[in-house]
C-alpha cells in the first residue's frame, strides 16, 4: 500500500526532524515540538488527517536521517536537508520543494577578531558529520589552500557546547542554523557570522523515491502554504475566505471550488486544514525564525517571488 494509505490507517504522520535546532525544530518544556520545519510536518498532518497534532516527531541526526527515511521509519523528512544531486539520484529520495534557501556560513567569537573565512588558517572547526557542510568545508579550505582541524560532531547541541567551551574556534553549518544557534547563547552579540557564504543549501522536505502519490501530497501541501501567502490567505482570515471568495484560485485552494483534494486522495478542505495548522508560509516564517524572533532572520532570498525572493509556487489549477 502507498504511504498515504499507511498514514491514514495509522492515524499519525511520522515526521523526521532534527534533534533540536531552535526555530526549526525543538521540543519545548512540555515536550511539544515547534519550529519552521515542524510547521511543515503539522501542515501535512493536517492536510492528510485533519489534525495538526497527529504527528509523531522522530528526531534524527545528520547521520541517521536518511536511513530512517529509507527504512520507512518516517514518512517524510523535514530537517533542514539540502537538496543535492546525489541525495536525489543516488540515495533515491524525492525532494518535494524548497522551504528555505540557505547557504553555509561560519560563526566565530567576536574576540578572535576574524572578519573573513579566509583568515581561518589553522583554526579548529566544529562540524556536524553526515552533512553536506562537512564536504563543503573540506572543499572550501582545500581550494583556498588553508589548513584547518575538523572536529566532527553528531548533533547541533553538542557542537554548540564545544564551540562555547572553546574546544573549537569556528562553528560552521547552514547560516540559518548558525543564526538559530546563536540566538540561544547567553550573549549572542559576542559572536559574529562571517560574511562568506560558501555554498548553496536549498533546504526542503523529502520523501522516498517511488511513491509519487505521497510525494505529491507533501509537495502540494508545501505549495499550498506558499500560495496562501501569495494570495493573502492567512490563518486569521481563512475562516471567512473559505466560505468562498471571488478569487477562483483561492477557492480552488481552499476547496470551495473544484476537486483538487479528491485528486490527491484527500478531503476537499485539505489545504485549509494545512494552512490553519500553523499559518501560511509567511506566518510560519515570521513566527519561528523571522525578524521579530530571537533568531531574527530576514526574508531575503526567502521572500515571495513577487517581493524579489525565490519562493515561488506553481499554480493551483
Amino acid at each position, binding site marked *: 500500500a502507498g504511504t498515504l494509505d499507511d498514514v491514514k490507517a495509522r492515524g499519525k504522520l511520522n515526521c523526521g526532524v532534527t534533534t533540536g535546532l531552535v526555530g526549526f525544530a525543538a521540543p519545548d518544556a512540555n515536550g511539544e515540538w515547534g519550529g519552521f520545519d515542524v510547521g511543515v510536518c503539522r501542515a501535512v498532518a493536517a492536510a492528510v488527517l485533519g489534525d495538526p497534532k497527529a504527528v509523531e516527531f522522530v528526531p534524527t541526526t545528520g*547521520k541517521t536521517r536518511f536511513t530512517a527515511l529509507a527504512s520507512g521509519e518516517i514518512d517524510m523528512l523535514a530537517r533542514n536537508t539540502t537538496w543535492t544531486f546525489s541525495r536525489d539520484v543516488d540515495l*533515491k529520495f524525492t525532494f518535494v520543494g524548497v522551504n528555505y534557501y540557505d547557504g553555509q556560513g561560519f560563526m566565530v567569537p567576536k574576540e578572535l577578531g576574524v572578519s573573513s573565512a579566509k583568515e581561518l588558517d589553522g583554526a579548529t572547526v566544529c562540524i556536524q558529520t*553526515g552533512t553536506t557542510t562537512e*564536504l563543503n568545508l573540506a572543499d572550501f579550505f582545500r581550494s583556498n589552500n588553508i589548513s584547518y582541524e575538523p*572536529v566532527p560532531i*553528531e548533533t547541533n547541541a553538542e557542537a554548540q557546547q564545544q564551540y562555547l567551551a572553546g574546544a573549537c574556534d569556528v562553528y560552521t553549518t547552514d547560516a540559518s542554523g548558525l543564526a538559530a544557534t546563536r540566538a540561544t547563547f547567553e550573549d549572542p552579540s559576542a559572536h559574529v557570522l562571517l560574511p562568506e557564504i560558501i555554498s548553496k543549501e536549498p533546504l526542503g522536505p523529502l520523501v522516498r523515491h517511488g511513491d509519487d502519490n505521497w510525494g505529491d501530497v507533501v509537495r502540494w501541501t508545501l505549495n499550498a502554504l506558499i500560495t496562501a501567502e501569495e494570495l493573502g490567505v492567512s490563518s486569521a482570515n481563512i475562516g471567512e475566505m473559505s466560505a468562498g471568495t471571488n478569487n477562483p484560485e483561492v477557492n480552488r485552494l481552499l476547496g470551495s471550488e473544484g476537486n483538487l483534494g479528491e485528486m490527491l486522495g484527500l478531503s476537499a478542505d485539505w489545504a485549509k486544514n494545512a494552512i490553519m495548522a500553523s499559518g501560511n508560509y509567511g506566518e510560519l516564517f515570521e513566527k519561528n525564525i523571522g525578524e521579530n524572533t530571537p533568531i531574527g532572520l530576514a526574508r531575503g532570498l526567502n521572500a515571495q517571488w513577487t517581493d524579489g525572493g525565490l519562493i515561488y509556487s506553481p499554480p493551483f489549477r
Partner: protein
Amino acid sequence: MTTLTDPPKASFRLSMLIYDTRYRSLTIQAVAMLGFMLLAAWLLNNTLTNLATLGKPIDLGFLGEPASYDINQRLLDYNSRDTHLRASFIGLINTLVVAVLGCITATIVGVLVGVLRLSKNWLVARIMTVYVEMFRNVPVLLWIVLAMAILIESLPAPRAFRGDNPEATMKVFDSVAITNRGVYVPEPLFSNSLGSIHLFGDSSLRFDVSLDLMAILVVLIASIFAVRKVTSRAAHIQETTGVRPKTWHVNLAILFVPMIALLAVLGFHLGYPELKGFNFTGGTHMRNSLIALWLALSLYTAAFIAEIVRGGILAISHGQTEAANALGLRPGKTMRLVILPQALRVIIPPMISNYLNLTKNSSLAIAVGYMDITGTLGGITMNQTGRELECVLMLMGCYLLISLSISMVMNWYNARVALVER
C-alpha cells in the same frame, strides 16, 4: 585369535535414517545443513530483491571514489581527495592506535589496582574497591562521554593562554600545553633525518616508513639483544659460582650509550608546541577525543583486569607463599619465582579476552568523534555514499579479523602454559 567376521549387514530401511544411531546423526546434520542453506538462501534472496527495488546493487566501486571529507587524527598522510578506502585504512589504524594504547594503560592500571586491592592497608584496599565497583557497574559509553565532557569543560581553551596575563600557562617548563582541544607535547625532530621509504606506491594502502624510526628501532633491538647476552652470561656465572655479578650498570650503558650516539648523529631535538594563531602549533597534538576514549576505555577495562589479577593472585593458594617463605625466599623473590609464574597462567587468558573487549569497545569512538574505523568506514563514508550493506559488512569483517587474530594468540598461549597434570 579367531578370524574376525564383519557384523551382519542389515538391509537399509528408510526408518533407519531416524532410528539408527549411525544414520541418525547424518540425518540430523543433513537437516541442519539444509535448514541453514534455506535460511541463507532466503536472506540472500530477500536482500538481493530489496537492493534491486532500492536500485542499489552491491558494488564496492564507491571505495575508489574520493572521500571528500577530512580526518583530523591521522598517522599516515591523507587529504580529502583520497579515496574512501584510504579513509577506512586511516580509520583502521586509528582503531589500532587507541586499542594498543588502551590495552597497555589498562594493564598497568589494572595490575596496580589489583595488587593494591590486596594491600594490607585497609584504606588503600577500600579505595581500590570503590574504584573497581564504580567503573565496572556503569556503562562504558557513559564513561566515554563523561571523560570527553570533563576534558572539554574543565580544561582551558587555547585562547586562555593568550594575552599578556593569561589565565592558563603551559606546564613542564613551558613544553606541554593542556587545553580542551587536547594535549600538546614536544615532538621529536631530526635535523639530519634519513628520510623515509614509501611503500605501496600511490595505492590507498600506501604508507611511509620513517628511516629514523627504523634506525632507532634497530639500535634498540640490538641493545636489548646485548643486554640479554650480558644477563645470560650473568646467569651462567651464577650457575657456576653461585654469585650473580652486578650487571645493571653495564646494561644501562649498553642501553643508553648507542642510543644517545645515534640520536646525536640524527640531530635529535624536540619541537615545542607554541601558541600561533588559533591553536598551538608544533609538538605532537593528542586530541581530546583520543584522550577521552583512551582514558575511559583503559580505566573501565582496568577495573576488570584488576579483578582478574586479584583473582589470579588469590587463586595461588596461601600455602605456596608459606612454603616459599619457609624456604627462606624473601617476598620479592617469592612473588617473582613462585607466585607470578603461576598467577600468570590464570590471569592471561581472561586478560586477553578483556583486550578483545577493549578493542571492540573502541568502536564507541563514534560518541566522541574520534575517527576510528567505525567513524570513517561505518560513519561518514557510509552516510555520504549510502552504501550501508557494503560498509557494515566490511566493518564487521575488520573487527572479526582483529578478534580472530587475538584469540589465536590466546589459544596458542593456553596450549603453551597448560600445567602438567597426572
